[in-house]
């Protein structure tokens, strides 16, 4: 007997997991509303230079997904959208969504004329503050929707309004106000994602204090064509090419003072990033300091290949001290090599901290009684009928596994709608 299609599905979070869950459900015929807090879809994946283990860029996969969304009338998505209130129960949730003003409407063609005249700059959070954009900006090169946005924290609005004058499409509306949207949905998928752990809290590693100590996600941006250095890996303090780079594994992860769990992707991410450096600087030396290298299943091959590389040295010992030479901004990292029983002090010119993944539900409290573990990840049994979690909201996982959990969540939401 064909299932009776009742109710809509709300997907919270428009990253890879949210997009997948939305598409899977929509492509079997369900109405889906996808909301995303950023001005673009794609989430953390859009910040990556390459995926492991295949080392291919994420853009092609994202593009396919964006096309699936465009072609599917059953998916309605909102960017710059926040969830305000949920009431009701499975099959009958009342949801209030806040739509923040973009100040740029659908007319925008991303021609860039506004950029020329905008006098205000803002730090570019997409590139972790390593460069700046104008107050009106395109969030990133592959932004979907391809439309500019105004950061109202920086824009002086009516005082300036130069962009409005110059825009020939009447795309800019500086008076755009936040709107509230009320919806009825039958089930909800939480795909709220993750944030890199705030490495400034790891006081012995100098992040935030020493310019040439960066986190792994910053390395992704440095290596990306759309990044602050147009894909050339240069150290932040002086824009010089690094010749000796240290990767510090478990920066925050597996540490009860920070994130008590293994973030599961950082070993492979660092090995992957070592290949970025090998490509750009064949003579550069790479040191990877680790507690244990975790590269399960097929990913082991990437590790074995790196082990054979004479320019990559794996050192068993966690870095617990980083000092900067103030004149050169070079860094000395200290660890005990547990295999040789020597405390070693290695001088390098760039340090990459393998910062772990913190669930966004750690800082942000969902407006629903869903159950989280002590680390802030949503439990697979959310405790509320009709609500399911997907991707890194559940646990720290790679993109491939996130997609699997998203498909599983889509199935569960469908079951929830059909079961009654």
């Amino acid at each position, binding site marked *: 007997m064909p299932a009776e299609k009742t109710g809509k599905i709300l997907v919270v979070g428009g990253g890879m997991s949210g997009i997948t869950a939305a598409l899977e459900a929509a492509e079997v015929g369900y109405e889906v509303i996808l909301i995303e807090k950023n001005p673009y879809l794609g989430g953390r994946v859009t910040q990556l230079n390459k995926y492991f283990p295949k080392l291919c860029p994420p853009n092609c996969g994202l593009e396919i997904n964006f096309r699936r969304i465009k072609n599917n009338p059953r998916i309605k998505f909102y960017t710059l959208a926040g969830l305000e209130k949920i009431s009701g129960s499975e099959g009958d949730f009342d949801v209030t969504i806040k739509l923040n003003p973009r100040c740029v409407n659908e007319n925008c063609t991303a021609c860039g004329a506004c950029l020329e005249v905008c006098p205000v700059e803002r730090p570019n959070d997409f590139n972790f503050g390593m460069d700046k954009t104008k107050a009106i900006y395109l969030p990133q090169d592959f932004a979907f929707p391809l439309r500019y946005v105004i950061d109202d924290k920086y824009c002086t609005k009516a005082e300036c309004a130069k962009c409005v004058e110059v825009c020939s499409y009447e795309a800019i509306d500086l008076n755009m106000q936040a709107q509230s949207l009320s919806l009825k949905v039958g089930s909800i998928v939480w795909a709220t994602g993750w944030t890199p752990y705030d490495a400034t809290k790891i006081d*012995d590693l100098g992040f935030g204090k020493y310019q040439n100590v960066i986190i792994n996600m910053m390395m992704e941006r440095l290596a990306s064509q759309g990044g602050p250095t147009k894909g050339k890996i240069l150290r932040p303090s002086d824009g010089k090419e690094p010749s000796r780079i240290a990767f510090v594994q*478990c920066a925050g992860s*597996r*540490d*009860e*003072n*920070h994130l008590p769990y293994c973030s599961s992707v950082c070993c492979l991410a660092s090995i992957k990033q070592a290949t970025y450096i090998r490509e750009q600087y064949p003579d550069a030396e790479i040191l990877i300091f680790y*507690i*244990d290298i975790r590269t399960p299943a097929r990913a082991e091959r990437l590790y074995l290949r790196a082990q054979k590389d004479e320019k990559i040295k794996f050192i*068993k*010992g*966690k*870095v*617990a*001290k980083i000092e900067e030479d103030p004149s050169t901004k070079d860094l000395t990292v*200290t*660890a*005990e090599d*547990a295999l040789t*029983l*020597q*405390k*070693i*002090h290695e001088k390098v010119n760039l340090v990459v901290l393998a910062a772990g993944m913190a669930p966004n539900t750690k800082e942000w409290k969902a407006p629903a009684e869903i159950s989280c573990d002590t680390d802030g990840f949503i439990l697979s049994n959310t405790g509320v009928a009709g609500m399911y979690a997907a991707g890194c909201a559940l646990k720290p996982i790679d993109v491939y596994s996130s997609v699997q959990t998203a498909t599983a969540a889509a199935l569960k939401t469908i079951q929830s709608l059909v079961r009654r």
Partner: protein
Amino acid sequence: MAEQVISPDLGFVKDIIAGGGESLKKCFQCATCSVVCNLAPDDKPFPRKEMIYAQWGLKDKLLPNPDIWLCHQCSDCTVYCPRGAKPGEVLNAVRKLAIEHYSVPNFLAKAVGKKQHLAFLFAIPTVLFLLILASLGHLNPLNVPRNEAGQISFAKFLPSLYIDGVFVPVAIFAVVCFAIGISRYWKDMKRLAGPVNKGNIWSTIIATIWEILEHKRFEKCNVTKNRKIAHFLVFYSFIGLAITTAWAVLYLYGPGIMKLFGAEPFSWMLGESPYPLTDPLKWLANASALVLLIGISLVIRDRLKNKEKVGSGGYYDWLFITIVFLVMATGILAQLFRLADIAVLAYLIYFTHLVVVFFLFAYAPFSKMAHMVYRATAMIFAKHIERES
């Protein structure tokens, strides 16, 4: 690689856990501890290797290893440990077992380390002093002894002949036990370290003593910075009290000895106590007692303050801290009640004072007090083998 046979001693692992190292098994060998420790040398740093020796029960690698004493338990390692394995506390428990292992007679070492034997250890001095007082007929609260001036006099309560009759043998006992213990320890360290430097041992000893007097090592601690001042005060108050004791011996026996040689005793040699508060000996005694009060209070405060992250130590630590505190408290109170002329309380507290002083010195080779001798020995050895400069 040459085959290496290791012999784990599971009983030893249990002993470490029982001695305050219950977090031992949480260690996953990340080596954060060896890096954050400012005292650990670059070559074979501690305490990561000690943590795995301890987990595996490798008693033979741990006990004769001077590194366990080069650690001053700053607890920087414990604070930064990502697993809550508390290396500082584990090494503290290992040090307790090292004292127990090397000290002779062993049964006393075992008794000092275990709560259930506490009553027995207190019973020895209590019974001893009660017997002496009973034989003197000084146990009747209605008829307390006073001196010719009608003052409360501890020298009348328990004449110095008896005091010295007890404490001189106690001191000799402690010194002999210490000597046997550290000679066993030195031999064992030599066995583990292999051939050693034949440099001048005396200059090494002097350098070590100087280092201890300066308390330089404590300055390298980050998290428990305050420990330096606390330990410094306790350490120097003990030196002050040791000088006081020697001084009092001079007052007591000086006149007699001078008479023996036909000389006229100096007038400042006051003879039997009590001495007036204006006498320099009393200045030193009371100043030392006050410094000890401040020092030991800081020790207690710091331990309680850092309890959550660092751990507050086990029974063995607190027994020692309590005894030191009681020695100081009973000393000060006995004097106050004597001056207030409340005889029964003054004598009762003085009696307690004698019991805890006995406890402190007679059991010093087995209690945490032994750390001063073992740590100093390990520091000398480490310099001797050029592990330390």
